[in-house]
């Protein structure tokens, strides 16, 4: 999946993946896609909840060798 920006949040513990995601999304234009890589096991639920609450769209997610990947479209 194409993305306009990649955020490497691997190795970061709660609440940093969300804090960094928020900062990165703020730098994008509406409609652009942020790709987030994280290793925190709570990241899947956290990012899904965050996207829902902030109105940004979680397009897709995947897991590869313990790395969770997310594609979030800015509202």
């Amino acid at each position: 999946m194409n993305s306009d920006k990649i955020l490497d949040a691997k190795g970061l513990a709660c609440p940093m993946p969300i804090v960094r995601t928020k900062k990165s999304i703020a730098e994008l234009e509406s409609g652009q896609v942020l790709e987030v890589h994280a290793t925190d096991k709570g990241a899947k639920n956290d990012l899904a909840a965050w996207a829902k609450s902030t109105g940004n769209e979680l397009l897709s997610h995947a897991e590869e060798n313990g790395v969770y990947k997310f594609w979030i479209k800015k509202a």
Partner: protein
Amino acid sequence: MTMNNEKTTIVLFSGELDKAIAAFIIANGAAAYDHDVTIFFTFWGLNALRKDEKVFVKKGFLEKMFAKMMPRGANKLGLSKMHFGGMGPKMIKHVMKKHNALSLPELIELAQEQGVKLVACTMTMDLLGLQKEELLDGIEYAGVAAYLGDAADAKVNLFI
């Protein structure tokens, strides 16, 4: 900050490291949710806001005793469980580093960077003999009415 943002408030009453960490993780998370976040520090919670270094201010005998007996700053707080005379906090800090979790001073800095409003309760500052010069820069000073003003508009209000 805008008027339309959701709001979150936390009262940090406790002065233990573990509880302060929990409060600041929730505060930073809420700030990432674009909430306007207020942490109201009262009683023992005020110790988390103390500067690390000794600050010389004029105090009475009782106030001096309080200042000596209470932990000076976020780095010196004890644990609510398994304190083990100071070994507990050392172990927790070690484990947190290992897991790449932010330390309490880092969490406080991040909160300020994210615009979390840190408010010191002036009434309990007086009781414990703490003065503005002894607390971190960039915080606000208020009482219960200011807290309630924020809390009444907030959906998440926690007492820790």
